[in-house]
């Protein structure tokens, strides 16, 4: 183990892998049993990705410094025209500009 692996990290990773596999096989398992998903449950499940991911974005913005906020705002504006990679590039340029050119 030593410098390559830490036991607690391995345990979390493998538990995360099992949890992930359950989501990947879960829908098949459900469909084979219940045929249909109730509409309100489906609506709630449909909202899961946006709801979960938003909770990672919003606090990062509101607790970040002006450098991070400007970078995220720039990336949001970029998203109107561009896909993920240009958004990352524009956000990165913005934060580097703030940190090194403007000294924020």
């Amino acid at each position, binding site marked *: 183990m030593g410098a390559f692996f830490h036991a607690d990290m391995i345990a979390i990773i493998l538990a995360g892998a099992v*949890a992930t596999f359950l989501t990947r096989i879960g*829908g098949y398992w459900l469909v084979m049993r219940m045929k249909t998903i109730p509409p309100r449950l489906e*609506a709630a499940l449909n*909202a899961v990705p*946006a709801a*979960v991911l938003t*909770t*990672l974005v919003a606090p990062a913005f509101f607790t970040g410094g002006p450098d991070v906020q400007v*970078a995220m705002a720039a990336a*949001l504006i970029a998203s109107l025209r561009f896909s993920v990679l240009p958004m990352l590039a524009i956000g990165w340029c913005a934060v580097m500009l703030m940190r090194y050119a403007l000294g924020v």
Partner: protein
Amino acid sequence: MNKADFFEGVRNGTPVFLSAAPFGALFGAIAVANGQTIAEAVLMSMTIFAGASQLVGIELFGQNIAPWVIVLSIFAVNFRHILYSAAMTPFVRHFSPAEKFFAFFVLTDPQFAETLRRGESGRKVSFAWYIGFALVIYIPWQVMTALGGVFGQLIGDPKVIGIDVLLPIYFMALVLGFRKRPNFLSVVAVSGAVSVIAYHTVGSPWHVSIGALAGMALAAVLPVKRGPASRDAAREG
């Protein structure tokens, strides 16, 4: 195993591999910058193989958060796969149990989207095609994770070269990828507001679950509209 089908799968999967490769490297670099070893980052890529949830896990590892909360968060981010495997069922029912095991293990957003498209166009989704598509994404994902990890190790402090902002921006891009879903704006507004309030009152990491539950509850009580449910696959590795 049908060779022609396999290589057709490889061809179909190649554009996905090209667009996912930078994220594999990004994951490796951020993982190492946040204290994982390269071996741990690669193990995570090999066993979880879902870019967004891997990055969420990394984000939480860095915050001294209880392990079960990290696992639950990975589960939450990957929850959409339940909808995918449900929708895919008619097209993979003919797989043997072992084939199903591997097929679901490598299920990703693009894999789902392409499988459904192939199946709904009336073409047979053979295991050879499916696994060819999957492998041309899976194997480079591991290589790119390792390369990104080596790169991340050379850097040290992520703030110095600005890669600390990439994670929130990446999550923002993922959120925007779901903008065609029903009630998108209301869900985002409620989850965002509740998570920020919870962050300041209850504290991290509970803001993640509390904010997410608020958004889901809202979606459940709003009038049910027909939308492009789970077809708008977010970009992911």
